[in-house]
């Protein structure tokens, strides 16, 4: 297979992976704070390079904004990819650790979502008291704590129960797809 075909196949894989995340998001939409986006982003970050995994995260973010409107969570998916790429050499294929890592992101999800509020009020909103940003951020975090707890449990158990199996499956399928001879 020539280099161009190989690159095209990688591009197709990125698109397919983003689609998988979108479908996963839609399936769990009715269950609050249970999502597989974090799960798949971690898995794809383990299999692909940082650039490719970021491309998947960005495509997903764009589609999410299109489908559900812009939200304060827009940057979190890319952050998960970058953080995963940084720790994957330490955790390697230990899915107990990845489950804790995924649960941790679930727990701090509310805090990460609150940061844009703080930044907006602190630096962009005019004629608003300085402490509004900090108070808004704090109120947002505290109100969301029970949901973050549920998010943590959901993320942890999804990764613990499915992580290793899905990772090995995707790794095998990716390798097959990339090395398959085209006609």
């Amino acid at each position: 297979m020539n280099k161009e075909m190989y690159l095209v196949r990688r591009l197709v894989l990125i698109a397919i992976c983003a689609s998988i995340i979108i479908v996963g998001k839609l399936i769990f939409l009715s269950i609050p704070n249970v999502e597989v986006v974090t799960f798949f982003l971690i898995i794809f970050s383990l299999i692909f390079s940082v650039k490719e995994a970021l491309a998947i995260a960005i495509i997903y973010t764009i589609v999410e904004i299109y489908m559900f409107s812009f939200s304060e969570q827009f940057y979190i998916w890319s952050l998960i990819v970058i953080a995963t790429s940084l720790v994957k050499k330490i955790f390697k294929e230990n899915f107990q650790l990845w489950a804790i890592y995924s649960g941790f992101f679930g727990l701090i999800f509310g805090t990460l979502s609150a940061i844009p509020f703080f930044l907006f009020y602190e630096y962009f909103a005019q004629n608003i008291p300085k402490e509004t940003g900090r108070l808004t951020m704090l109120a947002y975090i505290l109100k969301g704590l029970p949901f973050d707890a549920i998010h943590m449990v959901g993320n942890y158990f999804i990764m613990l129960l499915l992580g290793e199996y899905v990772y090995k499956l995707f790794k095998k399928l990716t390798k097959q797809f990339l090395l398959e001879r085209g006609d």
Partner: protein
Amino acid sequence: MLKNKIIISVLVLILAVGIIVCYKMIQKSQGQKGWKEITVEVVVGDDINKITFKTNKTMLGEALDEQKLIKTMSSVYGRYVVGVKDLKKNDGSFIEADFEKNGTFWFIYINEAAAEVGIDDYAIKDGDVIRFELQGGNE
């Protein structure tokens, strides 16, 4: 390996339950004890009707239930209001919203600001004004 997985899983569950329990306890402790006077306004179009009453309940949902002012349904997010007592007729009937049928829903304001939590998560304070406004509706 399996033993470690089980231990960590149990710890995660304990942590989650601990966070939820602490949150509920802090919320309840922020509620004022004793009797409080609150006003409930029901707004349907230009029609505004009010009722003021005293309650010693801590959370808004309990206080409204006590006065039989609301009809609710349960969801994964908690209880939500589907009917509010018709204060104009005052015959015990309810003004019901049906989002799926006609696109209407009850919007709740607490002291002129949109409610940020459900009725069972708001700890009432003396002097609170709770407004139920019927919104939406297919044209």
